[in-house]
């Protein structure tokens, strides 16, 4: 899922304070799982902003709403009225949802309440960690199911750098060395010999470097 982290309230306040009718707009899928931008979090954020507005003696009306997913057309219809009411929509979705909402509102600004951080998993309650960068050319089959593109700080494809120490990455002792994990996993799979196979130079045109990506499924098009 996509993980996001709410921006500091001060930063959000600086964005919203010139507006009079603010809709805090939740997205109840990915960013609800990480408790950052679901409809419940949108409601809480709206309350915090009302308090802030009161403290700062700024006159504004703040409502909250939300839909299941801001990245799909089909969920928008029930909230048309609320979206049209606002002179600012503060979206608590990831960057995808913020832009998708903005595309529906030609003359109303849509601002992000979150920093979209990564695609990750729920490691433990309240702990989210990155697993994938969407590089567009998955190599997990050769790396024992552990991704060096997203989990090695140097995205090395052929083994650890000299900074791997006691299973940890040189940049931070809280970060596992991806290549230690890969080597351990290959050993557990009885495939350690595969480590010596050279991983070819990667085609990065499938990731960000190749420009905005698009996938078309003709069989699903209407």
């Amino acid at each position, binding site marked *: 899922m996509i993980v996001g982290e709410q921006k500091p309230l001060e930063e959000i306040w600086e964005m919203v304070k010139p507006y009079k009718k603010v809709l805090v707009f939740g997205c109840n899928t990915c960013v609800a799982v990480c408790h950052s931008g679901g409809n419940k979090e949108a409601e809480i954020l709206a309350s915090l902003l009302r308090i802030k507005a009161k403290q700062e003696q700024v006159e504004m009306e703040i409502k909250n709403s939300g839909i299941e997913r801001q990245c799909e057309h089909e969920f928008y219809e029930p909230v048309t009225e609320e979206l049209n009411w606002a002179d600012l929509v503060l979206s608590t979705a990831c960057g995808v949802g913020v832009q998708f909402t903005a595309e529906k509102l030609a003359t109303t600004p849509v601002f992000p309440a979150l920093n979209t951080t990564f695609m990750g998993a729920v490691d433990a309650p309240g702990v989210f960690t990155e697993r994938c960068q969407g590089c567009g050319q998955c190599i997990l089959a050769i790396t024992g199911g552990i991704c060096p593109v997203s989990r090695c*700080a*140097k*995205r*090395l*494809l*052929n*083994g*650890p*750098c*000299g*900074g*791997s*120490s*006691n*299973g940890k990455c*040189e*940049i931070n002792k809280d970060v596992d*060395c991806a*290549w*230690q994990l890969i*080597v*351990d996993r290959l*050993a557990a799979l009885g495939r*350690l010999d595969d*480590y*010596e196979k*050279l*991983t*070819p*130079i*990667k085609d*990065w045109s499938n990731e960000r470097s190749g420009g905005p990506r698009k996938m078309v499924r003709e069989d699903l098009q209407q």
Partner: protein
Amino acid sequence: MSEKTPSKLEKILRQGHLAVTSECGPPRGSDPEVIREKAEMIKDYVDAINITDNQTAMTRMCSLASCIHLKLMGLEPVLQMVTRDRNRIAMQSDILGAASFDIYNILCLSGDHQSFGDCPTGQNVHDIDSMQLIQTVRLMRDEGKFLGGDEIARPPRMFVGAAANPFADPFEIRVPRLAKKVAAGVEFIQTQCIYNLDRFEEWMKRIRDRGLHEKVFILAGLTPMKSAGMARYMKNRVPGMDVPDEIVKRLSDTPKEKQAEEGIKICIESIQRLKEVEGVSGFHIMAIEWEEKVPEIVRQAGLYPRPSL
């Protein structure tokens, strides 16, 4: 093995001499005198001089320009190149630029993470990794081709090196990792600083067991300790560094004003012991901001005079 490049380092190694290399860090400024002065101190005592590439991710004068300064002095540079800062276009381009000045040695590295340096908020590139950089240089040299497949007019002629750390983790791939670099086409290795000689010798034994010492020249890396404090720092703070307690103790038991001298002594003793290890083809002496000590180390380790070709 016949020579594949005009590299003096390659020639010395292939003739069976113990090679000696050292390194100079470029200045954090544009004064070329800094490089020239460092090189002047060591030039008669080493066969080639590495120029580091923004080591520890601190922005410095570039390795390529510094290598050109050495070349203009008639010296033999080893161009260090990290994959952190440049993509494959820039690296191939710099390799050609170096080749245009007849720089004949390159050391392929991934580079320290930028979080250690002066631009921690910058991007890192790592378009290719050090293993793939080795392959790239070999492709450019041996097949005269760019990665894109086009022909290179006047291909680079470079002796291709890389680093190896016998002490880093994971332990079980220390030897396979070198085997992989050999398969990628590396021709010489400069190792991480060696303080734990027993562990290094064990690594070398495993290298010999796989016959890798016959496929790649291994230069043992050494850095003299300036003080007990430096030994403790290297032991506790530098990832992938193995400094045994007896080294720290030996320096700590030495009066402060004599610790530097003792550090040099340890370095010389290490070289003397490692000279006897089968498969060690030479020494890479990294006297960090202490280049003036290189002549003394080389002399006392019995590695002077250097072979003249």
